[in-house]
């Protein structure tokens, strides 16, 4: 398969687009692999890419029950940032942001990463102090952060109501200029194509229904397309983590599955060229390159595996949107949908070896997982190849909940969905 380049574009423009090959093969599963990755979301596909690229492990299959990209990687609102506070979480997200900055070149696939900047609004002096603390923590970790005044925000976001008459007047905000958005589908497809080109089998419509065991060790999976054996089985199925890992004997993960909705409006002329979050409620919004406003808010608030939400949250999200941008009152919503979030008890993920021999787990991403896709794949591949965590994901152990090393960025306690 040829590289995508200006040359291949020109060639195909002249020959009626006849020269394009499918971006990845559709192989049948082999009976055995070195590594089987369960879950063809962003993280599973990124793991395959980095296993092949960084560790030379290419006898790998990614098993996806549906089509790749049909899970959360294709359902999220695509905010990418590294404005975290804790010394044990920030370096991971910063590494991810650095990988994003070179990702299109690394994959030879345009993931449309756009560092348009991200602003978190503060509506009270206390909130502004909390953002100052976070900004200072970022600066201490070598990550640029700025505190903007209301006037500076008004200049960057003319559509935003920063007047004193606003329902929740804006006092300032935390600004990370390097944050932004990316095209979610392209991320799944780009990682898939890159892994496939290095020899990884991407097997769609192949649902894992059980695990094969020899003594205590997991040695393979049973799937809707037969049994597949592997030396190492890596499970990275986001919202389905508890459900899938129960079949491997893990009945008590620190995770609850909850539904999160997202909304897209009709296409508008450019009106919003940064990503922005509301501080007095829960809302985040950006404008896609096609012109649609892409936004979301709170979880629906109860355990759910249904990839759809209820109307009260849609109303709540719309209310928060209008409190920020009264001018959007007449904008029509085109689509809304839901994704199942693997909400962990401290708001941070688990990327770890075990706890059963032969098994590697990657889950608990909450709403944080899209920005983390490159670093999650990078560190999970390392963890699988070396049978030990990389220093960046060492804090994301499963045992932290027993040992008292939880990663509670906001100090909100052991409640899924409060982070």
């Amino acid at each position, binding site marked *: 398969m040829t590289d995508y380049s200006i040359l291949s574009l020109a060639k195909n423009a002249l020959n009626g687009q006849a020269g394009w090959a499918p971006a990845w093969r559709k192989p049948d599963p082999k009976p055995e692999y070195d590594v089987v990755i369960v879950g063809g979301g962003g993280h599973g596909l990124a793991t395959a890419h980095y296993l092949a690229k960084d560790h030379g492990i290419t006898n790998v299959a990614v098993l996806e029950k549906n089509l790749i990209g049909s899970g959360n990687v294709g359902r999220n609102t695509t905010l990418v940032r590294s404005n975290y506070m804790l010394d044990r979480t920030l370096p991971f997200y910063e590494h991810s942001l650095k990988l994003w900055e070179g990702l299109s070149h690394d994959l030879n696939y345009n993931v449309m990463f756009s560092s348009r900047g991200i602003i978190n609004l503060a509506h009270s002096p206390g909130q502004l102090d909390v953002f100052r603390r976070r900004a200072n923590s970022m600066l201490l970790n070598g990550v640029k952060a700025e505190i903007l005044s209301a006037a500076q925000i008004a200049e960057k976001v003319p559509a935003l109501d920063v007047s004193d008459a606003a329902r929740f007047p804006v006092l300032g905000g935390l600004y990370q200029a390097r944050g932004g958005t990316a095209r979610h589908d392209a991320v799944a497809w780009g990682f898939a194509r890159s892994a496939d080109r290095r020899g990884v089998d991407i097997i769609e419509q192949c649902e894992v229904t059980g695990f094969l065991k020899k003594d205590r060790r997991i040695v393979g999976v049973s799937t809707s397309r037969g049994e597949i054996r592997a030396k190492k089985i890596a499970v990275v199925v986001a919202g389905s983590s508890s459900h899938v890992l129960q079949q491997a004997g893990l009945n*008590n993960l620190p*995770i609850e599955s909850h539904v999160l909705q997202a909304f897209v409006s009709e296409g508008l002329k450019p009106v919003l060229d940064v990503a922005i979050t509301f501080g007095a409620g829960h809302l985040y919004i950006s404008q896609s390159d096609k012109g649609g406003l892409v936004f979301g808010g709170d979880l629906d608030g109860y355990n759910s595996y249904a990839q759809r939400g*209820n109307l009260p949250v849609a109303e709540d999200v719309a209310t928060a949107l209008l409190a920020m941008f009264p001018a959007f009152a007449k904008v029509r919503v085109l689509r809304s949908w839901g994704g199942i979030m693997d909400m962990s008890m401290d708001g941070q993920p688990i990327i770890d070896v075990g706890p059963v021999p032969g098994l590697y787990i990657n889950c608990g991403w909450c709403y944080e997982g899209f920005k983390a896709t490159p670093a999650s794949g990078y560190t999970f591949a390392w963890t699988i190849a070396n049978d030990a965590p990389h220093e960046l994901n060492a804090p994301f152990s499963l045992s932290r909940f027993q040992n008292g090393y939880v990663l509670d960025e906001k100090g909100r306690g052991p409640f899924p969905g409060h982070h």
Partner: protein
Amino acid sequence: MIIDCPCCGPRPVSEFSYIGDAEVEKPDMQAPVADWVEAVYTRTNPRGTHLEHWQHLHGCRQFLKLQRDTLTHEIFAVELAGVYASGAGE
């Protein structure tokens, strides 16, 4: 979702607040740490029938115990929780 409150009848979900998994049992104060880790941090998180506590916050304020399907959102049973639950105190 519509929840059929035993006190108030069928009411929209927005009147209720979610408490969480009703099968988590608080261990004895002297119980080993592992029991507390389980109660505080781990959940069975089933895809399917789930027993859960809700409160009819903007209604009768009673705590309720629901049996609900987490995949279809179908509600199979609603009863009062705690000391008022059917069979409690027998």
